[in-house]
């Protein structure tokens, strides 16, 4: 119960930070998808339902404040968490540090590509809409995003391990 509450608070905090704080303070963290990292953490803590619901709600709120076609971000968060969850269960299957980093990297790339595809589809249907452009700058931004997300995810991982005993003791059946 406490774990679910803490994870819900974590999701809310990262969502608010991503939408309202990071774009204002203009730091190198801008563009780092903290919310994706939080969703992956939720999933790794065995709360895939909270992660999925969080993806839907967080995506809907992000869509309200986005210039992209409505639904692009919701679809992207949900697709990312579903695919990452499948990869975790079917391929990676452990919660080691390299596994966690590879999931974060996969989630970051998947999210960026999903947003590009979903927004491009929306723009195809309504040309007045805005969508990311598939240029060299897009690929450069993904690489930059990967590096920053990896750094943030590393810090978060060790903080969670240092302060959260339950991460190490999670049993297999909780997934």
């Amino acid at each position: 119960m406490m774990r679910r509450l803490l994870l819900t608070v974590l999701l809310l905090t990262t969502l608010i930070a991503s939408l309202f704080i990071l774009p204002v303070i203009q730091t190198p963290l801008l563009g780092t998808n903290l919310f994706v990292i939080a969703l992956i953490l939720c999933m790794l803590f065995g709360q895939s339902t909270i992660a999925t619901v969080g993806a839907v709600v967080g995506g809907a709120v992000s869509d309200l404040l986005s210039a992209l076609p409505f639904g692009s971000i919701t679809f992207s968060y949900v697709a990312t968490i579903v695919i990452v969850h499948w990869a975790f269960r079917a391929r990676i299957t452990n919660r080691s540090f390299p596994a966690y980093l590879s999931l974060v990297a996969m989630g970051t790339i998947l999210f960026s590509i999903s947003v590009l595809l979903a927004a491009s589809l929306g723009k195809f249907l309504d040309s007045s809409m805005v969508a990311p452009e598939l240029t060299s700058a897009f690929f450069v931004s993904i690489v930059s995003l990967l590096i920053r997300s990896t750094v943030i995810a590393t810090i978060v991982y060790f903080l969670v391990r240092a302060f959260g005993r339950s991460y190490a003791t999670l049993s297999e059946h909780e997934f």
Partner: protein
Amino acid sequence: MTTTSNQRRLLIRTAGVVAFLILFHYVGVLRPIERYTLRLLSPIGKASLAIFHRSGHEGLSPAELRQRVTMLEERVADLSVKNVRLEQALDASGEVTQQQAFLQAKNLRGVQAQTIARSPDPTIQYIVSDAGNSRGVRVGSPAIVQNGIVIGTVIAVDDESSRILLTTDNRSTFAAVFIDNQLAQGSVSGVRGLSLRMDLIPISETIREGEIAVTSGVDPNISPGLILGEVDRVEKQQGAILQSASLRPLYTASRIDTLTILTTP
């Protein structure tokens, strides 16, 4: 019931919820919920801006700041001499008053708005304002700050909010002309969220650093005379029939708090 079938069920339900969310949004069923959600989120956005608002001059030393202020003051004085009617209407005592004075001087109508969120994605430059359909904002309306400096155009609008694509975004384009030379017309577009570029300027026209580019009025819904930027560098190639200029925008994206969205062309 196995875990796999539970997850499959969750996946199907989630896909259904997302599909209905998108469908209901475009049909309009979700409008009241969206409106109330935005009303709930607006104070958070405004509070964040109030707390974390910084000077737009990060990275400049005090000496560089003083130099820049002096240069800008000289430019403002120069523009005021050229536009006597605007200078008489101006009141330098605040952002809102400056915008209102500009509207009066130009006989335009607009709605005051505040920024509630900025783009979290650095590859797309936009802001979200708290003025929407209910206050007369329409897609294509230009948004200005200070004395008629255009910051972008409305690209999406809801009942109580609108998304404004900034002029520095790659997707922004404006038909433009120089304030001192009505024959030097061209097209201004954003460059990677940082600056502006004016292309298609006839080579026969002489462009100098420091000249001000304004909207020409060719674009629908965009009044002529709105300030786009200041020439930073002129680019000419030998034998070419057209030239380009890099423009410096006269606003700082991180400082956009109060703006006016024009409702008359």
